[in-house]
Structure formats: C-alpha cells, structure tokens
C-alpha cells in the first residue's frame, strides 16, 4: 500500500490533477504537494495525493555522479 509512483501530469483542473504512467492514469489532489506542478511535470503520487514535484535537475545530478563513477558513459537528453 505504500507504493508511491512517479507519474506525468497530463491534466490540471483546479486542485485536482490527472497523471499518467505507462498508459495508466490516476487522479490526485494537490492539497499537500510541496510545489505546484505544471503540465508535463513529474510528481510522486500516493493514495490519491501528489506529494512532491520531481526535480529533473536533481535527477541529472545523480546521473552526472554515475558518469563520474564510470557507471554510465553519457547523460541522456
């Protein structure tokens, strides 16, 4: 029950968003999200609520670290 999935925001209607992952869509409430997402952003959704807007810059920093460790050759676009 604790699975919180990162999903892509495809619709925003007031405080309710619709988000998509691998063809599955879910509605989520924005009452407790830390940063209001925009269309196309990725958010972590858990039990009908968006909890967090994924930070693409931080994702890139992790990949940069992997590059330095020799785990990946290139950072994807």
């Amino acid at each position, binding site marked *: 029950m*604790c699975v919180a999935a990162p999903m892509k925001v495809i619709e925003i209607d007031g405080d309710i968003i619709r988000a998509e992952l691998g063809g599955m869509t879910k509605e989520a409430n924005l*009452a407790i999200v*830390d940063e209001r997402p925009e269309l196309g952003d990725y958010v972590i959704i*858990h039990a*009908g609520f968006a*909890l967090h807007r994924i930070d693409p810059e931080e994702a*890139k920093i992790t*990949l940069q*670290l*992997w590059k330095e460790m020799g785990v990946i050759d290139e950072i994807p676009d």
Partner: protein
Amino acid sequence: MKYLTEYRDGSLASKMAERIKAISTKPARFMEICGTHTVAIFKHGIRDVLPEHIGLISGPGCPVCVTATRDIDKAIKLSRIPDVIVATFGDMVRVPGSESSLQKEKGLGADVRMVYSTMDAIEIARQNPDKKVVFLGIGFETTAPTIAAAVVAAQAQGVNNFSVLSCHKLLPPAMDALLSGGELDVNGFMCPGHVSTIIGTAPYKVVVAQYHTPCVVMGFEPLDILQGIYMLVSQIEAGEARVEIQYRRAVAPEGNPNALKTLDRVFEPCDSPWRGLGMIPKSGLALRESYRAHDAEALFDLDVPDSGEPPGCKCGDILRGVNTPIECKLFRKVCNPENPVGPCMVSSEGTCAAYYRYSQV
C-alpha cells in the same frame, strides 16, 4: 519518470555492483525499513549481485504488517455496528485479527469497502448520510498527511459522518526501539525515500547521533538501491556515520513542509502498539482534540481485549530482523498467500510474501 530507463538498466546495475565490490572490505548488514524496498530487492535480485559479506535484512517497513492484532480487532468490532461502513486500503481487509478478519465480516454482511484514497471514503460518507463511515487509517509518514488532508477537507465541507481510526506509525521511533533493544545487529539503514519526501532527513540525524549507524535515504529503482548501498558501504569503509540522500530527485533535506504542517494540524504523536515490537513511545499519531468529531476512538466504544499474536507465527521476530521467514515453521507449510497466518504474508509488501514469491528455498 524522466531518465527512468537509466535507473532500471540491468547492465548499469552490474557496473554499480562492481563498484560496490571494488570498495567493500568490511562485513556489514543493512536493514531496509520499507516494504517497497523489500519487494524491489527481491524482484531485481539485488542480494545476488552484492559481495557475500554484505547482508540485507528486512525490518518493520510494511504498514499492514506492523498493525497490532488489537487494532484489527477494533476495526472488526466497528464493522459489526449496523450503521457503520468501514473503508480501508486493500491489504488490511485480509489481515487476521484474533478471531476474524474484515474480509470474513464482509462475507457475513458487514459493509467493508476498499478505497484507493481517503478522499474516496469521504465521497462514500457524502453518499450515505444515514451511515457512519470510518476510515481505517494505517501507514507511515508518507500516508498520514494524505489522511490529515482528508480530515481537514471533511471538516471544512461539513461531512460529519466521516471519522478515522488512526493506527498510523512513525518510523524513526521504531528504529530507535530496534537499536535500543540490543538484539538487532545492523550496520546501516536503507531509509525509505517516500517517507523522507515528507519528513526529510532530520529525524534520522537523531538515530545517527545516538547509535552511530549510517542512514541513507534511497529511491526504489534498482540503480537507486545499489547506489544507496554503495553510499552505505562507503561510510562503513571510512568508519563514518551520517545521513545521506541518494534519492535527491524526490527528497529535500527539509522534506515537504506543506504536508508536515497539515499533519501537525490534525495529529499529535502518541504511544502506539506495533506487532512484534510492542508499545513504542511517541511512535503513533492520534487526532487532536479539535478534530474529535472525526476521531473514531472518541466516537465509538472500541474497547477490545489484547489477545496477542497467533500461535507459532514469527511475524513479530521477522519484523524485528531477528528471524527470516525461512526460519518460521509455518512458512509455506501452513502459511501462504492464500491462507496467511500473519500479516507479513498478507501484504504484498510483507517480508514473508516477498520470500514466498521470489525465494526458491
């Protein structure tokens, strides 16, 4: 997710495993305290790619599994009240109480409904004004703010027939209880990313300061977990202990202040019983006095005897990391996903269910 492919890439995982092997000289045991980690570790065969002297053990990280039998008995008692609808997250329905389960009660005519979100339970309350809808509130710091937000919404919208039986649990006090008990032999914690999405890193700093045990907040993709283990091993090799965040794309050190504010508005810490761990001070959440109208404990007589745990069931020892499911005499023989004796076999995130599905032993 953006860059998702990389976080799941198998060939990158073996490169990361090689990096771990290259730096790891000291034996160490790491405990994961999240059911989602337990499942991911099995599913992606992470144990198999680690050096032999690195052990991974499962701790009390599945909210369904740690719910005390007595709290399930309370929910069963509620379900037997004629005008009550019990709403709950899926897995809870099948967990055995001392003499029944919500599923059995449903079969006998009780109105038990599975919901995906607390907001669905509020909708049920709205559609059934002559009934009382009680939501069985379970989960850790990730889930609790969503339930707090629903309670705030119910009060604001005047949905007066909606209440919560709060069985929420807080992870850091459980880690403290495990370490202070002295029977746990771990050298580091694999901390759940989504709990820290809400609480950040501050509560783990207390654990690190007191027990000198490294904590790394990890994501849930295979590469996240391997990188997190790499970070733990690096600390062990250097003789250091601190809190680090591997899952930076989803976790800020301060967590989610908006969610924490909502949580604090509705709930206050209370002593709470954990299956296998007993009563842990300030490890649960009770509704504050101002939300008494939505607190099932205040609205109903929920006095039930404390019946303990089912005979022979080792879920308690498994949750404390003292035993693995393989050491339980009931495992696979009497206890299986179709006929679970204890909650660790019921929940898809339970350690026993994960061993049952993924281990060949």
